[in-house]
């Protein structure tokens, strides 16, 4: 089966699909649980979930005989990764500058005195 990476914008163009995602965002749940709160059939909910999965907005895992859906946390992960690399670069540079600009006091004092 080909894995499509559908555009999340497109996936969310549909108001019902947004409601489905809102329900999943409220906490992990099954298709039945989602359908119970929406004026759409269970197969229709499954269809919407398929699109959300393709757009990588939700994840699914098995819990016993049930398939449980939950929101993917990629947004926050992405931000963390970006900041992590930013601060990594800062600290590496900081170490270089700090060690290059430091002259141990004893050596300096000795050097001054002997000259």
């Amino acid at each position: 089966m080909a894995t499509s990476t559908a555009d999340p914008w497109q996936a969310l163009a549909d108001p019902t699909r947004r409601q489905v995602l809102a329900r999943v965002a409220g906490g992990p749940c099954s298709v039945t649980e989602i359908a119970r709160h929406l004026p759409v059939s269970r197969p229709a909910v499954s269809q919407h979930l398929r699109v959300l999965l393709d757009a990588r907005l939700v994840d699914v895992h098995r819990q016993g005989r049930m398939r449980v859906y939950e929101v993917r946390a990629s947004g926050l992960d992405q931000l963390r990764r970006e900041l992590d690399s930013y601060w990594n670069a800062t600290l590496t540079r900081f170490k270089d500058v700090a060690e290059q600009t430091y002259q141990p006091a004893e050596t300096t004092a000795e050097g001054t005195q002997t000259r």
Partner: protein
Amino acid sequence: MSTTSQDQTALELDIVVDVPVEHAFRVFTERFDEIKPRDHNLLAVPIDRTVLEPRVGGTVYDLGTDGSRCTWARVLAYEPPHRLVISWDISPQWQVETDPDRTSEVEIRFAAETPERTHVVLEHRHLDRHGEGWESFTNLGSGDGWPLYLERFRAATQRHADES
């Protein structure tokens, strides 16, 4: 240098430098211009220099080559030679965030391991304050949580696509 991720809304890095704690603190605050990466410039022109005002209530700003200024942090704690806390007034889209409730904070701690060696820990925390979308997903219909979340998601998926 290591990153620990016990908390999803924070990140922590540390490094050991072979200089005394006073020197380490001084370099970080006085030479911040030299150590901060230049690749995330929020100005329209190249950065001439970055200034960190060494006092509580001071700010951190980039000065552009044409004299323009971009203030992107506030100094929240300044305690030489052990501690510096600044706000991070930059949104996940790398734009200045003007609402202080939607900013995170960065704490840098300096501890002397020996008279000539300093352990520096950098913690960037409260990342979730930068927007609805991760934890407070419940009020999806209202506010600007949606565009923020989607924009970030779009960027993430594009990056994945570029990588593969």
